[in-house]
């Protein structure tokens, strides 16, 4: 995996890229995991060129001042695809990234090939509240781990949510930037776009939804709902898995995602 910079719609953005084969655009969650890379992206990179940009405001990606809502992010990624010369590309998105992917696929169905959505936000189900990830504060890291993992003592839970006091200034800045960039898009309406639900019928991409059975941030009811709203979608639920799906059950996620993406490649061949 290599990290480089590209100029997209006047914004200097940081992009992690690795592997070989047809491109797969990976849209990261509020955790900004793209640049950390991970087992799942490593595995996918075996037969795909995984391209994982940091959203504006995350890591060293610039240009958050001209991003005001989810639509601006959709336009940002359209510009990204144009810059790459992709008429159509497979997209995988996790949580916040899944929301961006859905907006893209609903507004520009012809630009999205196959789609994988992991523990995605983006819609709201009355009576099934999402947890408030912005309320996490100093000294409450344990609570946050319990919220985002099925097993809060999972070896990677502390990597995902470290004790904030133990971070150096750069690490703390990255964390604060990620939260601020997420808040700019997702503070209110909280983690969703009230228009999205009515647009999802336009999605033409074959879509795999992957959800952790124990997701307490975006309960699995959201996966079920999306499976009903997106025309060619199916839901796969991963047992003993919370919202931090890419870290808690990487093998299950990788197998499901790879299977879905390879089925597309086989059909094309």
């Amino acid at each position, binding site marked *: 995996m290599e990290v480089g910079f590209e100029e997209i719609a006047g914004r200097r953005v940081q992009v992690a890229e690795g592997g070989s084969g047809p491109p797969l655009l990976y849209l990261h969650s509020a955790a900004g995991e793209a640049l950390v890379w991970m087992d799942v992206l490593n595995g996918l990179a075996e037969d795909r060129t995984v391209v994982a940009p940091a959203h504006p405001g995350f890591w060293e990606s610039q240009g958050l001042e001209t991003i005001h809502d989810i639509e601006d992010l959709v336009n940002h990624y359209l510009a990204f695809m144009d810059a790459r010369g992709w008429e159509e590309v497979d997209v995988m998105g996790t949580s916040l990234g899944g929301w961006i992917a859905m907006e893209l696929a609903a507004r520009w169905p012809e630009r999205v090939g196959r789609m994988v959505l992991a523990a995605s936000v983006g819609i709201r189900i009355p009576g099934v509240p999402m947890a408030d990830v*912005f*309320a996490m*504060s*100093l000294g409450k890291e344990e609570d946050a781990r319990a919220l985002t993992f099925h097993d809060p003592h999972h070896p990677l839970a502390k990597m995902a949510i470290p004790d*904030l006091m133990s971070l150096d*200034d750069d690490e*703390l*800045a990255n964390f*604060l*930037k990620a*939260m*601020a*960039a*997420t*808040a*700019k898009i997702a*503070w*209110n309406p*909280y983690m969703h776009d009230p228009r999205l639900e009515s647009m999802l019928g336009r999605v033409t991409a074959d879509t795999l939804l992957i959800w952790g059975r124990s997701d307490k941030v975006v309960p699995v009811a959201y996966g079920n709902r999306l499976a009903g709203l997106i025309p060619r979608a199916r839901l796969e639920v991963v047992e003993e898995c919370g919202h931090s799906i890419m870290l808690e059950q990487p093998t299950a996620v990788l197998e499901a995602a790879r299977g879905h993406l390879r089925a597309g490649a086989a059909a094309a061949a």
Partner: protein
Amino acid sequence: MKFFAFHLMPYRDLPDDFEEHHDTAWVWVPNELWDPEKASGYYNEYIDQLVYAEELGFDGVCVNEHHQNVYGLMPSPNLIAAALTQRTQRVKIAIVGNALPLYDPPTRVAEEIAMLDNMSGGRIIAGQVVGGGPEYFSFSINPAQARSRFAEAHELIMRAWTQPGPFEFYGEHYKIRYVNSWPRPLQQPHPPVWIPGVGSLETMEFVAKRRYAYMGIPYFHIDFFKKTYGLFKQACQREGYDAHPEQMGLLMPIYVGETDDQARAEFEEHFWYFKRKLIPGLTLAPPGYTSIQSAIRVFRSVDKLFISGVETWDGVERGTYAVVGSPDTVYEKLAQHNQELGAGNLLGLFQLGNMPADKARANMARFAEQVMPRLNERFPDAAEGPPAQVAFPDEQLAAA
């Protein structure tokens, strides 16, 4: 020196074991705890205390705005100020302040302050604040827009007061085709503006440039204030003038007893009620609420330099989180600190936590009679008043 009595109007009747069951005094503190019987008298009692400040010779009274919390029960300081315009004749009424981003459109603030200025005969000080971190949760206003909303709302309000209407205002957040505020304020061109700040350079520069008054947000270690006021004075110097004492307000919990021992014995329990029950959650900093640099600075200083880290009375004394003692002691401490700070406005919190009315009033009386005159002598008012405020410094430069 000018003396103001500041009131937070706290919730006084929380259960003794409150902090064992609740880790915040803000946003999520369940309002089922509100006891209508006990609490219904708060407002009138607190207003009486501010009216008493006028009788005692204070120059002004201060109210402020907070929402959905037990620390301060004034979601609308303007309502309290309206009552005060009718109950007082002389004192300045400082609203420090209205949290501008919580008003949409913020022309509401221009209108209400103008009403109050007329109702009070021109006694209003118009404080303007960004609003506390918890309020961004309570209002679901995007904290990543806190600073830009504040700057834009400030501009809109100042234009509404000073620029002939109707005019069109098109900003990023507020788009109003016809701004034409009736009434206009009595004080011309506008009531004096005070801006509270936690110590960010951006805010100090904003205030210094416009020659507004700066007020340090309290509950930090005294060394933190000394640094902050030093930076504010430097910011004024960069603008080509020396900060006037009345451009600086020092806000402190103050308790005057007959003797040092009596003062502590009477005051301490209320301080701990305040610190343990009312403060938790106050520092909640939602994402994007400040610049990343400021957020890191506050993050690193909260444990060492903020009241939440204080556990012993010795710690209270060393950090001057409250000025407590006999009249002599209180005078000496305030004189000593202000020698360095140079503030011309002293804002005292005389009622703190669950302090009952009789104690708060006796405290105010002892302060007014035995401390205020000596501080006045020590820090006489400057021959000239503070510089004229300049709401639109860039435009003035352009015109010149």
